[in-house]
């Protein structure tokens, strides 16, 4: 299980050799991408206009991030909610633990929260004697397997139903071992009944939020299973973990983004549940939390403001970029060794984790641009990845062989006469290496090319040579 982003290549190689994973990753096309394509085609309005509106809503919010966060805080507090500000992962973990301890919470349930993965919350809470139980089905499954989620919205995307069944068999030991667990519906039913007791008995629920709305002081949760709402409504304490960049001006803006989010993510017009959370329970209500806390997490996000990577903060975590990325489709999420994977991971991780730690992510891209095409808020993902490559180069962190290669290339390319002379020689030499078959199977350098390919031999003379010959002949 790769938890180290610097081992992306090795982890990717293992992933490529895993036939079960290949089957699972095939569903990116047949399920996710196809779902999105259909939903976009069905949209009654103009999809490109909607994307542009989404971009403008997010850019406006980012340009007023500080005042919107203050407005949100004021409005939420007016309704009895509490707002906490965490500069980094450690502070966020401490704040959450503090809230749980203050409320004497022992039994904790969680809805899916990528921020909680990002800050390593579960391990920290377990080390402090409080073990949270994931209730989102995919998160529950990977928690049982002690794996991180492999996809931003589908945590167990890498697994087959047989693997899920096996996981349930060795985890739910008080159930009848001879029970059938062949159908997906049987697995879902089992999770429903096993987890229902947890919802009823939990002291605290921790969820994420898909959006924050400043004017109303609301957090918005977009889910399908119902676990998110059970986690937030039944326990006495509800903690929302969210990145600071999730805020928009008001719920109307959130409604627009919602149209983009569900279509881009799962191909739905809307999710089963969109929950607007405004504060603790009102007097007279018999459910809803008594304590409602929102933890705003920075953890490197504000540092991206004013940089060439700022647009990455528009992200609404739909995972469309993952679903259309040929690199993600080849190696899957675990190879990245990080919470955020695929193109958004490549654009975000160097900012959150540092260029050195996350250097593979922006480099492992062909810049095909499919991600930017499908991004509902028009993040120029390849441009941001290239920016991180430039930062890597300028910081002296790029691999020495590559830097030398590029410098050598640039040296010649800036001197046409040298370049032409060298190219003439190279064309002949390579043609000779190609032999009668016309193909080269290996060369001393460029192992990366020849590891998996031959090189079609050149014709033997350069264009510029032949062009000169032609023009000389014409005179």
């Amino acid at each position, binding site marked *: 299980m790769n938890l180290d982003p610097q081992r992306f290549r090795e982890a990717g190689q293992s992933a490529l050799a895993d036939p079960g994973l290949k089957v699972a990753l095939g*569903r990116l096309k047949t*399920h996710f991408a196809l779902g999105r394509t259909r939903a976009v085609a069905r949209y*009654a309005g103009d999809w490109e206009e909607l994307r542009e509106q989404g971009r*403008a809503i997010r*850019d406006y919010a*980012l*340009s007023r*991030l*500080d005042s919107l*966060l*203050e407005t949100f805080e004021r409005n939420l507090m007016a309704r009895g909610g509490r707002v906490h*500000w*965490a*500069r980094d992962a450690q502070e966020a973990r401490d704040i959450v633990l503090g809230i749980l301890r203050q409320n004497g919470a022992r039994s904790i349930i969680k809805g899916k929260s990528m921020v909680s993965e990002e800050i390593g919350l579960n391990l920290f809470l377990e080390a402090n004697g409080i073990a949270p139980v994931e209730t989102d089905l*995919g998160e529950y499954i990977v928690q049982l397997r002690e794996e991180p989620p492999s996809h931003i919205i*589908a945590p*167990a*995307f890498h*697994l087959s*139903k047989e693997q899920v069944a096996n996981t349930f068999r060795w985890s739910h030991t008080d159930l009848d071992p001879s029970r059938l667990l062949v159908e*997906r*519906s049987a697995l*879902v*039913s089992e*999770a*429903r*009944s096993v987890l*229902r007791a947890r*919802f009823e008995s939990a002291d605290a629920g921790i969820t994420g939020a898909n959006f924050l709305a400043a004017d*109303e002081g*609301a957090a918005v949760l977009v889910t*399908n*299973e*119902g*676990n998110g*709402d*059970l986690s937030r*409504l039944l326990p006495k304490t509800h903690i929302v973990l969210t990145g*600071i960049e999730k805020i928009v001006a008001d719920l*109307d803006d959130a*409604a*627009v983004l919602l*149209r983009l989010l569900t279509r881009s993510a799962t191909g739905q*017009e*809307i999710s*089963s*549940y*969109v929950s*607007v*959370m*405004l504060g*603790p*329970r*009102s007097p007279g*209500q018999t459910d*809803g939390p008594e304590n409602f806390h929102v933890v705003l997490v*920075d953890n490197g996000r504000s540092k991206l*403001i004013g*940089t060439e990577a*700022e647009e990455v903060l528009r992200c609404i975590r739909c995972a469309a970029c993952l679903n259309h990325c040929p690199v993600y489709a080849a190696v899957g999420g675990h190879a990245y060794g990080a919470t955020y994977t695929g193109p958004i991971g490549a654009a975000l991780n160097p900012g959150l984790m540092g260029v050195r730690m996350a250097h593979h992510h922006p480099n492992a891209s062909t810049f095909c641009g499919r991600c930017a095409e499908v991004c509902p808020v028009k993040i120029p993902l390849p441009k941001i990845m290239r920016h991180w490559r430039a930062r890597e180069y300028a910081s002296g962190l790029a691999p020495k062989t590559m830097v030398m290669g590029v410098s050598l290339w640039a040296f010649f390319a800036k001197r046409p006469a040298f370049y032409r002379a060298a190219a003439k020689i190279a064309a002949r030499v390579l043609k000779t290496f190609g032999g009668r078959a016309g193909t080269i199977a290996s060369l001393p350098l460029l192992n990366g090319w020849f590891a998996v390919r031959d090189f079609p031999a050149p014709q033997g003379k350069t264009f510029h040579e032949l062009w000169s010959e032609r023009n000389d002949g014409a005179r």
Partner: protein
Amino acid sequence: MTGRDDILSSIRNRRVKTAPRPALYRPPAVPDLVTVFVERVRFANAEVRLLSCDADVPVAIAELLRARNLPAVLHVPPGAASNFAWDMAPGLSLEASPPGSEDAALAIAPLAIAETGTLAYPAAADAPASWHFRAGFEIAIVRVENILPHMETALARLKERGDLGSTINFVTGPSRTGDIEQTLEIGAHGPKALAILVINA
């Protein structure tokens, strides 16, 4: 310096761009509210029936339960029971306790959204939010005149009525998951089924 101070000044010190507030988005017009609502509800894997008056509700509910081989027991939130003449469906018994995972529960939706086939439930003392997620089968009632075109219109209407309250649940269809092999399964932790009775009085 608190976390709050540091984060806010980090943002302020770095900000370079200003971006204009975009004009309000105009979502695609909904030509016929009831038709679109019904079509969207069905698309979202929920059942929908049109009734001509409140008096038809108890019998419709009894039929819905029978059709699913469910016991004739309906959990009804506080205060909602008095709206209907339950003696029209004598076999049906009412429960005031919160529904369990296999139970049927009634929900009154003050508003609905045609664009997506969505029910809007602002939580209230007599309309507990958790019921929408506890039940195995939710039976919702909405009046045709309360079907609005878009979420934006629903939000505006809720704001007109006063404070938004502690929470609003927008519910579209039963619960579902795609978490196993990315294949849709209806019925996850929330209700396994949803039926909507639209009163077209």
